[in-house]
């Protein structure tokens, strides 16, 4: 596949590193030094030019591309480049990077004519919500921009009798969720109505973020809900994190040094308590009992500030710290300093782009149980034999449809709902069946 990449910065070079071995890559950037650094390390074609210049794009050969990735740090450049790519290479898939979650919304609603939009701020927020969102979970994966979660839980002795010890058909399963698998020891079943969840087993649940929270509360009653997370920094990243966490019903406090930004955050999030403070003042931390928070997230612009604030907050007693590392090297440094999770937004973005680049239609998003099961995110073709079929009539081949994404909105289908062409289907399946499932859709 011919891949045309605009932007050779951190995201661009990570994408090159992942894709250069299998694909033919062309990289366009305005900065010659970045291009030569790439050209020395990888076997890729490089062009100096402007992503917003149609002539530069044409000269660099965008017309032959099968996939165009606009991954500069500037939204305007990426949007314009994406627009020209549509004209110059109508056959190519396009991916653009944006720092504005609003563009992601627009794309989901079908208002942006590109195939994929990736937003570092949003990806970071989702990554963080995966690590703290469902406290009772062993493992969490999110799909469809956070609207669908796949969560693996350990079922403990104190779990609610509403769902444990009764056949699934009688269990009070939270709304908008399905049990995808029950695992007893080595044995895994895709459950039917007669199967029973028992203490000591593990289960995999597909559902909305709210349903995941509900399951968490059912399976680990008392304590295991996240109600107090402190976010330092109310810039773009901090705001995106706050939005995602609040949407999941997690209580959020925010600390922001700039009065103006703090005011804006307070206006946007009435549910969050926002402080205009640097967060580095011990008196403030003490007075507001920041140490009592269940977790603290550091999303300030400056890595050194994030590191220092995280250490300070640990001293005050916060058990779990997550810090945003803007420089790749900071990830290791944060790790060394005892920060529990370090996330580099650009790395997360590059991963997302590479995931799409591998196969634009099928996203093999997750492997469970030592690769025995897979979660697939497949877009239904018009020619699929199951278009127009009600979900109750779908064949059961060791596969379960957890959710579909239609016009950007996740639906947790019931038996009467009908599959339509263009639906993104999120399926939990045995790995052996995966090729068959992809082919059938």
């Amino acid at each position, binding site marked *: 596949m011919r891949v045309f990449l605009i932007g050779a910065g951190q995201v661009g070079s990570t994408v090159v590193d992942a894709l250069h071995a299998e694909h033919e890559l062309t990289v366009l950037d305005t900065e010659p030094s970045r291009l030569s650094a790439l050209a020395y390390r990888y076997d890729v074609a490089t062009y100096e030019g402007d992503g917003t210049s149609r002539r530069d794009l044409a000269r660099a050969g965008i017309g032959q591309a099968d996939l165009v990735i606009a991954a500069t740090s500037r939204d305007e450049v990426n949007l314009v480049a994406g627009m020209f790519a549509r004209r110059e290479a109508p056959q190519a898939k396009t991916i653009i990077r944006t720092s504005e979650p609003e563009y992601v919304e627009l794309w989901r609603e079908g208002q942006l004519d590109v195939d994929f939009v990736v937003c570092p701020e949003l990806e970071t927020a989702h990554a963080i919500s995966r690590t703290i969102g469902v406290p009772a979970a062993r493992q969490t994966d999110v799909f469809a921009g956070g609207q669908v979660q796949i969560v693996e839980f350990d079922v403990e002795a104190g779990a609610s009798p509403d769902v444990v010890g009764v056949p699934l058909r009688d269990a009070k399963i939270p709304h908008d969720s399905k049990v995808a698998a029950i695992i007893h020891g080595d044995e895994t079943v895709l459950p039917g109505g007669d199967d029973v969840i028992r203490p000591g087993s593990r289960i995999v649940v597909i559902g909305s973020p709210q349903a995941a929270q509900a399951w968490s509360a059912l399976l680990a009653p008392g304590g295991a809900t996240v109600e107090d997370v402190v976010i330092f920094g109310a810039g773009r990243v901090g705001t995106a994190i706050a939005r995602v966490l609040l949407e999941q019903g997690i209580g959020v406090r925010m600390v922001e040094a700039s*009065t103006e930004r*703090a*005011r804006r*955050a*307070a*206006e946007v999030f*009435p549910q969050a*308590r*926002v*402080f*205009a*403070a640097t967060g580095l003042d011990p008196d*403030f931390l003490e*007075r*507001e009992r920041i140490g009592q928070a269940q977790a603290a997230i550091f999303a300030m612009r400056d890595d050194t500030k994030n590191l220092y604030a995280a250490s300070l907050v640990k001293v005050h007693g916060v058990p779990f710290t997550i810090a945003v590392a803007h420089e790749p090297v900071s990830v290791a440094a944060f790790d060394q300093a005892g920060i529990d999770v370090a996330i580099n937004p650009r790395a997360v973005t590059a991963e997302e782009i590479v995931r799409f680049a591998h196969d634009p239609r099928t996203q093999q998003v997750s492997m469970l149980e030592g690769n025995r099961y897979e979660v697939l995110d497949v877009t239904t073709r018009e020619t699929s034999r199951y278009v127009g079929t009600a979900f109750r009539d779908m064949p059961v081949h060791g596969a379960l449809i957890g959710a579909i994404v239609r016009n950007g909105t996740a639906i947790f289908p019931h038996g009467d709902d009908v599959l339509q062409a263009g639906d993104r289907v999120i399926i939990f399946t045995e790995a052996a069946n995966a090729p068959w499932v992809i082919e059938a859709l």
Partner: protein
Amino acid sequence: MTAGAAARAAPRIGPRRRIAIDVAAAFNLVGSLARYLGLAALLPAAVALWYGEPLWPFLAAGAITSGTGLVLERVTARTRGNVGVREGFLVVSVTWLVAAAFGSLPYLFAGGDQLGHPLDAYFESMSGFTTTGASVVTDFDQLSRSLAMWRQFTQWLGGMGIIVLALAVLPRLRVGGRQLMESELPGPEIAQLSERIRQTARRLWGLYVGLTAAEALALAALGWTGVDERMTPYEAVAHAFTTMPTGGFSTQATSIQAFSAAAQWVIVLFMLLAGANFALLYRGLVKRRPGVFARDEEFRVYLAFAAVACAALVAQVWAYDLAEGEAALRAGVFQVVSIMTTTGYANADFALWPVLPILTLFALMFVGGSAGSTGGAIKVVRHVLLGKILRRELDQTVSPEVVLPIRLNGRPVDERTLRAVAAFVLLYVGIWAGGAAVIAVDSAFGDLGLRAIEALAISATALGNVGPGFGITGPMGSFAPLGDVAKLTMIVLMWVGRLEIVPVVVLLTRHYWRT
């Protein structure tokens, strides 16, 4: 220096100009408003014609007003059209003084003993235009029908505002009209009903006329069907004219007590409507979106407040054996709605009630209607915002860094507006206390023997544009026995209260006038 250079004078530093206000332009606008205001005398003239009463007091009053307006306009004609934001305060303040002067002319000409004195005439007229409803009339039978209708009509004109009416009807006021309108319409901000201020003014006045007509019809229907023998078409129109502006003047010495229970309930309903935000009423009733009522925070608080106060007063009326059954319910509900919306009607002589219900009514004088209603006093929205400001203050005492935007209907409220609300409430309380002090001193000199609560209530009832006080100034009493200084104080309080203090008080600051 050549002749050519002298012809085009070099720019030089100009002379000092001290006055920052274009007084001539402001008075020019006042003049043209007065010119049109004189036409208002045609309505009582028509009533006089119908009942065969003398026409001349009204025609003379109208001619004098229009003539004075015309002269004022001519004298200041050279600066026509320069009324900016700054002049607006002066225009609004002076217009209301002029309107009251105009309104007092028929009383001077035809008021006889009880209204013929200039101060009494001006008091009655100011009380009319500001929709207060405090009266110096002692013998209602002596008033001619046309003069009584004129009292009612001044309240109706003042309710939605003279300037708002002018904006709706006159073409000239379009420039700078918004600020003029904000000075006159009650409440911290006005909700725009249209992109154009003129259109907004027209819709508000249209709704006002419509509701008044609806009430007049509803009341007249009671008369026609024989439910209420005393509710003649004349009385129906007269009381519709003073319900919708939350005025409170009545043609009867016993106010609304003179009418049947059914009429009283109809009036309760229309008083409640008059105390609601007219922009909201327009959206809900005219545009037929009833959902807006449930969503509006101020409206919910307004109704909740009225409900709680009604329950409290009904319980008191019952407990003190002042009335029983439906009469007790009616007395409690009517009096709460009347005082809270600052209408000032009475269906019982509450001046004779024990101290607890009197204190309840006294407290209600400070509530007022909603922003954008015709009611006076502090207004519900300011109480809501002030409560939120206080709660935030307490929260920030514990956590100084916390950022808490104050929301109304889910939208953040600008900090400047919040400061203005706090300043307004402080000014309101200060002016009320000052007014009460002057009235008390005057009463001491005049041997009137007002009690503390009576003096405080007179000040509150004037500033809040409510109407009746307690004791001798109660709903069945009169303000006539008060001394001249007390009457003058009330005139100022009514004027300041109707314009919501700030446009008047700002005229007293040095920087308003000087550069």
